[in-house]
């Protein structure tokens, strides 16, 4: 999606304007144990936003496949639409109590609902009232420059983009949003030339595992 974004008309403008900045940059997001974090979102505050072109709102898809949200994290821009098609043959009751976009959709197999517009920047946490284990996130970015790390925790930014700072978000991060300045970032270059971003993440909460303290103590 980012590629697509980059491949659009804006890429030419970007290349022209941000020639003072360094060449293409890669970012590595890792947790406190040094493990790469996927699905981390990097939202850059661009140095010269005036040069940024305004694109029309897109419609993106947050599917439900095998009682999971797919993708788990969906990055959209402010004002984009999201469609919830339900690829499962069972019923889902998708809801969000997040203040950016509270909603409730009863999705039946094969019966699509109208896409929802997300016009407030932030994160909407999605759940399913029927399947507690289902959890998904929609990141609504206000900046045009927004990246998401791949499986290797790597994200690449075109070298034409100049930025002051970056907001880092991850679902498991202890701090919901981490803001890092360009100066700080450029100090943390690793051997491969990637800029390393360290996040502290929580262990995933146990779900549906119940133990008895008394059984243990009593024996």
């Amino acid at each position: 999606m980012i590629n697509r974004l980059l491949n659009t008309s804006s890429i030419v403008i970007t290349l022209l304007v941000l020639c003072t900045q360094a060449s293409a940059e890669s970012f590595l997001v890792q947790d406190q144990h040094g493990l790469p974090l996927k699905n981390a979102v990097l939202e850059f505050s661009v140095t010269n936003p005036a040069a940024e072109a305004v694109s029309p709102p897109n419609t993106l898809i947050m599917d439900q496949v095998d009682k999971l949200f797919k993708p788990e994290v969906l990055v959209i821009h402010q004002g984009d639409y999201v469609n919830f098609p339900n690829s499962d043959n069972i019923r889902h009751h998708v809801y969000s109590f997040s203040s950016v976009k509270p909603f409730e959709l009863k999705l039946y197999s094969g019966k699509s609902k109208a896409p929802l517009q997300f016009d407030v920047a932030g994160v909407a946490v999605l759940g399913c009232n029927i399947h507690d284990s289902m959890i998904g996130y929609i990141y609504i970015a206000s900046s045009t420059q927004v990246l998401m790390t791949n499986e290797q925790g790597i994200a690449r930014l075109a070298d034409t983009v100049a930025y002051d700072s970056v907001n880092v978000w991850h679902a498991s991060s202890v701090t919901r949003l981490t803001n890092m300045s360009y100066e700080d970032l450029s100090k943390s270059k690793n051997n491969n030339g990637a800029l390393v971003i360290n996040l502290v993440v929580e262990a995933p909460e146990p779900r549906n595992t119940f133990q008895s303290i008394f059984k243990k103590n009593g024996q």
Partner: protein
Amino acid sequence: MASKLTLRKQITFLGVSLVVLTVASLLAVSLWKTISSHNLQINQRITSAENVLIEYLQAKEELLLTASKVLTADFGFKQAVASRDQATIASVLQNHGSRINASLMVLSDLNGEIISSSNNQLTFDSTLSQSLMAIKQNLNKTQLMLLGGNLYQLIVLPVEAPRTIAYSVIGFQIDQAFVNELKRLMTVEVSFIYNDALIISTLQNIDASHKEHFKKTDNSWLLFERKLYENKLITFTDSQNHEYIAQLSVDLSPSYIELDKLVAITLLISLLIIGITAIVCSFIARSLTKPLQQLTQLSHDFARGKYEHNSMMSDGGVEVLRLYTSFIQMGKKIEQREIKINYQAKHDALTDVYNRTTFLELLAEKIALHDHNTDGSLLLMAINVRNFKRINDSLGSSTGDLTLRSVVERIKAIYPEQTLMVGRFSGTEFWVVINLKNNESYEDIIEHFLPPLRAPLKVNKLWLNLNYCLGTCLFPEQSSDVKAVVRRTTIALEAAKTENATLRAYQSGEDEAYLERLNLLEELRETLTRDDGELFMVYQPKLNLENGKIEKVESLIRWIKPNGQFVSPELFIDLAEQSGLIIKLTHWVIDTVFKQQQEWQAKNLKLKVAINISAQDMIHTDFIDFVFEKISQYHVDPKLVTLEITERDIMTNEDLVISRLTQLKQTGIQISVDDYGIGESSLGKLKQLPIDELKIDKAFILELDTSEKDQYIVQSTIELSHQLGFSVVAEGVENKASLDMLKAMKCNHAQGYFISRPIKSAELLIWLNAYE
């Protein structure tokens, strides 16, 4: 067992101690078993109570979990929480809380800030949020927690929408009802304690002192302290590592009451058994010791000489009966032996007549019972068989024994009816008591007694002619006193012996003379002890016929009583020899003579003094030592001492006397044989004797001048003596003719009234002066 206890006490003690031991062991074992099974029971109760507690809390946990899950899964609730719809939240909490009768329903946000609470007081509790934040670490598990002073079993579940947006806390208060229910299920007391502070308990009124209360002891058993409670602590740790303790306590006092009852009953029964045992043992011991007492009595009777026992044992077993029977038999045997020994003690073994002691005892009895008016006189006769030694020596002692028996038979046979008893006093001396009939006289009896006694006696085909000496005394005519009768009979027998007569009746006055001799002896003993001049020495000079000088004197003892009575030396010396007093007398003489010689020596008078010594003196062990001691005491020259001893005395114990004389002679003392010529010695003996001098007896000298025979004897004796190397003294010279004759015969010394009678020392000195 060297115990001084009686058998009865020992048996009782044994029985009782065995029972005590048994009962004590049984009691100990049963107590031990009871106590250990009781302890086991208590432990089982506690274990089961513990299980019940855990199960109960688990059940509560399940309940809380279910309720929580239901609550937190409720979409409407989630919606209300997400939208912070306070009223809805409160009502939902209320609703779910009432479903499971939960005491506490709280909703807190992710920071522990309380959103809603069923307990208003908790809302403002500052520590609550901390506690809740801590609980978060233990999601989905119940735990005990003290909130606002109350203990709760809590469960915390996240409210997920779908990420956690809040926490719901549901809990049961562990209140009085809760613990009471637990107690009902567990049947033990339960208390919850936190930080040593009692939170709640099924026991009342123990808040402050709960520790002391549970450690209380029971002192009803004096030596042992018993716990009143058996406690078990179960610790529950919450997420903040606070320890909550559930204490299970079993009140032991009811079981102690039961136990004490059991012990009391057992002890009572034990005491009863011990008592019964003591009585039974005592009874058995009594039945065992009673025969022993009877046997003891029996042996006491035996000791007293009472052997007749016909009564049977009243008690006891077969063994005791056997013992009793052998006791009785022993008694009979002892009795038989006693009779035999008694008989032997009273009778002479050879002749079967009474021995001396018994004879005299019986005689005393007879005389005491004698009635002079009706009973005839008693003739006491002492019969001595003379020269019996010859029969024994020539015919053998068995013939001798037979002879004595025959003599006894003969004595008994002469007056078989009138002979009251016969006794044997010594080897050949028999005593007889013959009861005279009223019309019989002493002469009648004797007339018919002697001939049959003296008739020849046939022993072993030999006809023996025995000679007898008889002494008689008639009771009560000659004496009415038993001692006197016996003494007088003895005197008569002695008289018969000395007079060589067959029969000698006691003659009145003899006893008195005998007693007089005894008196005289006693006086001699006393005067010897007093040494006050009644006894004194006189000296008879001996004339040396060769040079006409007086060189020697013979010392002679004299006794003149204070009343002037002269006691014949022959008489009292004879008495002294008979009584053994002669030793003391001779000592006195030697002492006196040596002292005299010392005096003479001081006056420059050297006289040889002859001292008469008896056989008894020579034989006496101390004699030689005494002589030597006195010689050195008075510084007497031994050469001036002559000991005169008669020929007869030398012969009484020849070897010993000769060896003693030799010993004396070696020191220079001279030995003289006194009374030579009238003894039984042979000439052959003379050469063996260690003598210096021979004294011809005065029997040959008194009539020397007129008797030719005496002249021959004296002449030849003098010659013989000289040839054997002895000097000769003639004593009893009473006239000049004899003296001249002796001088002619070359007799060495002469002694006699012609020269001088024996005189005291003072006179002797005067006489010597005059003679010179």
